[in-house]
């Protein structure tokens, strides 16, 4: 047979070894590899003296300013594709990529060309039958054990045929296979061929290649105005690892690298050393006895599972058993896929990190520079924003193109661009400027694409912290990356769903609402609707009748109220009943009761509300409760309240009834409550009070106006700060 197709799992050391041995045996004239065919003229770049991992980064942009599709094809030393590339060349074969370019339709939405298929149906069933927990454990059990080559080939063949049958091919698979088959047919005319591709494609490829036209397929045309390209970027183990990547492939690259370099026995020892070092550096006790126990466990599991060499799961299970001495909150991360769940035991987090490794790739110096460097250069020239020495000041108000660019550079962490305020920046020349620009090239071909990719990555890293996510969203708008993909917004939505702190949610809601009012984009409205829903849920759960007023909480209710005012879609029929319940909830913090009342006031004027407020004011059982309640009420509805003399009168009566001690206790919260009024309204409150006590209403301004100068205030403020610092340093705070 002239054509040998090797079906592999990407990033599998066992498959890589198989590829090497098949190449030795067949000595093909042509080696075809599943990879972007448009990169073929530049394959020499891959043969340079790189340190792996690296990736072919491909991008595709439909006209300037439109969204970019980006895709990576990552390689490491033990990638079957990489072995084919290098070994094929050594054996004197013609080496070519044979798959469609990343900018064609089948790759839309695919960020990792070498990601795994989901593994449903057959794979799940097989896992159950062989008692393997998860796809990765199953794969290691079947294929990564020491096996004779023939046995490995036979297993791979049977496995992928069954997978192909149980997971129906999509149009994109067929389109790619048709393209690859043409390459096969074309190359087969000239001599023996070895083709390396995902095992899923092998059955159909072998079937159809003899029947297709044996000519080299032309690269698909792109529409006018479309920009696209591919280039090499350094990659890292961290990004390769399925636990942190979006489109996951084979996990734990450092471990498999060790398997590839030194065999599975030695890899087990090495990884044990990494784990011990890592945990000890963090001051976690790891005794020799623990390591022995882990080893014993691993060996027992190996024997039970019929493994000749320790598989990844055997090792990880062994460590977990020996090192974790308490109940876990989440399942062991290696039994599933995807990002680490919040609440994963810290020792498990470190285990996963040790198996994943820190290695970063480095490109040979002769590799052409990423286009980002040139793009950055041009942009800095065009907008006259080149950093200088000594540092210089630049004005770039929000919303200008300069400001967009500067915010993007900030996202890319290119040193030398410092933001002082919304419009003021300082530019300085940094020695790291150039290397940072090259590294940023991994994120994209242009500053715009790169900053978008970087932002997406950052979003992946902020788990559960809504305030950070909201900050990144605002960052995105300031950098004019508003065309965030749906995936990104879903991420934000996910964080909203997981948020448990009402104040934090309220803060994020406030800032995103502000953003929405500036740009009026539909999808922000949808997000806000979701946030409102979540906010109401969290607000209703607030408990604690003695809790002091929390400005963050009050701001949150304000934000909810404003949302209902400005966003017509936000439904009131859920919000109003929640607020009605909360206003009457005696177990709620007083400020929450006040805020709920204030909320209701903003939408309906009614006698009942006033009566309810009066009742709450008169019913305050503790001095500070009065101020807390008022803080909530004033914070949300001061415009409505300031017109009601009855209310001020009730407060006045209460305060008059305080003795000195009670007054001192009540003062801070009362003060906070009245700080929600601007000076003019405070004056009107003062006037009402003066009238009540028979004073001269004309004196009101003098009562609320401070006679101290701003300078004096600042000095006082600074003094206070210094005292606080001093107290903190002495441990008295």
């Amino acid at each position: 047979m002239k054509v040998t197709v090797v079906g592999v799992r990407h990033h599998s050391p066992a498959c890589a070894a198989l590829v090497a041995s098949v190449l030795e045996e067949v000595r093909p004239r042509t080696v075809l590899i599943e990879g972007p065919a448009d990169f073929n003229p530049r394959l020499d770049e891959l043969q340079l003296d790189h340190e792996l991992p690296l990736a072919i980064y491909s991008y595709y942009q439909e006209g300037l300013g439109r969204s970019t599709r980006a895709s990576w094809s990552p390689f490491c030393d033990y990638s079957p594709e990489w072995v084919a590339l290098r070994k094929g060349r050594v054996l004197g074969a013609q080496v070519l990529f044979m798959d469609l370019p990343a900018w064609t339709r089948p790759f839309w939405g695919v960020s990792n060309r070498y990601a795994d298929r989901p593994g449903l149906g057959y794979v799940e069933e097989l896992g159950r039958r062989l008692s393997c927990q998860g796809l990765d454990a199953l794969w290691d059990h079947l294929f990564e054990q020491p096996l004779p080559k023939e046995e490995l080939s036979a297993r791979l063949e049977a496995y992928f045929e069954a997978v192909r049958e149980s997971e129906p091919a999509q149009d994109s698979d067929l389109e790619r296979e048709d393209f690859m088959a043409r390459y096969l047919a074309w190359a087969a005319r000239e001599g023996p061929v070895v083709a390396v591709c995902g095992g899923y494609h092998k059955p159909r490829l072998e079937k159809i290649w003899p029947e297709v036209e044996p000519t080299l397929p032309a690269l698909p045309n792109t529409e006018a105005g479309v920009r696209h390209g591919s280039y090499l970027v350094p990659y890292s183990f961290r990004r390769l690892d399925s636990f942190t990547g979006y489109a996951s492939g084979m996990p734990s690259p450092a471990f498999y690298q060790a398997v590839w370099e030194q065999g599975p026995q030695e890899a087990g020892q090495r990884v044990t050393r990494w784990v011990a070092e890592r945990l000890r550096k963090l001051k976690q006790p790891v005794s020799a006895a623990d390591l022995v126990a882990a080893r014993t466990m691993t060996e027992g599991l190996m024997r039970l599972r019929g493994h000749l060499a320790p598989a990844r799961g055997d090792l990880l299970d062994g460590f977990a058993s020996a090192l974790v001495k308490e109940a876990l909150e989440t399942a062991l991360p290696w039994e599933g896929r995807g990002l680490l769940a919040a609440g994963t035991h810290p020792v498990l987090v470190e285990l996963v990190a040790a198996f994943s490794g820190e290695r970063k790739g480095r490109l040979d110096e002769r590799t052409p520079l990423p286009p980002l460097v040139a793009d950055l250069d041009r942009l800095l020239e065009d907008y006259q924003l080149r950093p200088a020495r000594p540092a210089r000041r630049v004005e770039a108000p929000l919303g200008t193109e300069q400001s967009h660019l500067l915010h993007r550079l900030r996202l890319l962490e290119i040193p030398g661009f410092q933001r002082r305020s919304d419009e003021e920046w300082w530019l300085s020349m940094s020695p790291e400027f150039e290397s940072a620009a090259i590294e940023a090239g991994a994120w994209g071909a242009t500053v715009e694409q790169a900053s978008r990719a970087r932002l997406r990555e950052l979003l992946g890293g902020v788990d559960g912290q809504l305030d950070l996510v909201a900050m990144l969203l605002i960052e995105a708008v300031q950098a004019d990356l508003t065309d965030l993909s749906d995936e990104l917004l879903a991420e934000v939505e996910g964080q909203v769903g997981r948020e448990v702190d009402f104040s934090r949610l309220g803060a994020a809601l406030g800032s995103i609402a502000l953003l929405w009012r500036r740009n009026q984009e539909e999808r922000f409205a949808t997000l806000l609707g979701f946030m409102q829903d979540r906010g109401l849920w969290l607000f209703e759960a607030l408990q604690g009748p003695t809790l002091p007023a929390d400005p963050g909480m009050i701001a949150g209710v304000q934000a909810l109220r404003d949302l209902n005012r400005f966003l017509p879609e936000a439904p009131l029929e859920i919000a109003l009943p929640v607020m009605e319940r909360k206003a009457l909830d005696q177990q709620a913090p007083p400020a929450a009761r006040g805020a709920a009342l204030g909320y209701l006031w903003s939408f309906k004027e009614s006698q009942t509300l006033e009566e309810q407020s009066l009742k709450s004011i008169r019913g305050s059982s503790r001095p500070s409760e009065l101020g807390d309640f008022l803080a909530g009420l004033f914070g949300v509805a001061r415009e409505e309240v300031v017109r009601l003399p009855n209310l001020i009168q009730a407060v006045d009566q209460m305060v008059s009834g305080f003795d000195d001690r009670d007054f001192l206790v009540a003062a801070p919260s009362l003060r906070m409550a009245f700080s929600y009024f601007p000076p003019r309204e405070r004056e009107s409150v003062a006037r009402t009070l003066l009238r009540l006590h028979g004073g001269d209403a004309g004196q009101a301004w003098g009562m609320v106006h401070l006679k101290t100068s701003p300078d004096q205030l600042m000095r006082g403020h600074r003094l206070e700060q210094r005292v606080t610092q001093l107290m903190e340093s002495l441990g008295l705070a």
Partner: protein
Amino acid sequence: MTTQVQRPPAEKLYAAELEKLKKHDQGSRPPGWELSLQGVRRFILGDAKLDISAKFVGNSALVDRAMVTLATQRGLMLVGEPGTAKSLLSELLAAAVSGRSTLTIQGGASVTEDQIRYSWNYALLVAEGPSQKSLVPAPVYLAMKEGRIVRFEEVTRCPLEVQDTLLSLLSDRVMAIPELEGDEGMLFARPGFNLIATANTRDRGVNEMSAALKRRLNFETVFPIADYDVEMELVRRESKRLLADSGVPIELPAEVLEVLVTTFRELRDGQVGEGHKMERLSTVLSTAEAVSVAHGMGVRSWFLRQEKPNPADLVECLSGTAAKDDPDDLRRLRQYLEQRVKKRKGRHWKDLYEARHLLG
């Protein structure tokens, strides 16, 4: 001829399966074990080829680790929420490994060393002095002597000093009986002896465990069933069996079962639908609890109204199980019904919402 018992131990209940497995077992057995590790795995997780039923629904890697731990010199500690079938797993392991699951100590504040090691028949002790005859063995003594697994349920409910009795037994595998002389004064554990302890995470803090004891145990966390369909099927099957035992000839309608299992899962995980988080209830909402609620609903609706259960029965039963006596849980439950269930589509969800006032 055996008399009927309410609940026979696993080794009796599955005697035929164990026999069959023993006959077909070809793997090598650790010293003192009745089956090989592969055999134990088949017994617990089931094997279609030998027609062995699956008795524990869950993670196979967990079962692997548990067995390997038992085959080494460390004890096994199963931790997890109540109702996650820890005790079931420990019973199955003991039955399969040593053919006997009844060497069990139930932990509690009143457990003393005597109930773990041995005590004396005082009449004989006074009459004849200390001897093998006057010694009354406790489960650990028997397990060591016969080379079997001893089970220690809810170990953290025992006082620390009682827990620490286990220390030397686990590390030196020998029990000193100072009252007896000569060789009889030392009981060396036969191969096959080991310990399975269980503790539930809700009890953490009742009595912590000493670091020394922790070191001698491997911890395994047992999680609630992750797969919705699997849990649903389990609740359906088990509640049907219980209802039949109680003389109720009906089954829960599928949609009521769906509401029940979904509600339990959401309140248990603190996660509603896609991503929306809520405070978890402090009460335990295990699969076992779901089965008992389903059972209760069936009994209630059949004997009170002669009809199939509806979502209103669920609310009534929930106020008794999910909320128990914790007002915070009641509040969370009310909030769940008011804000989340309200938005659900489908008649049975609407019924559930309409019945919310039954919470009390």
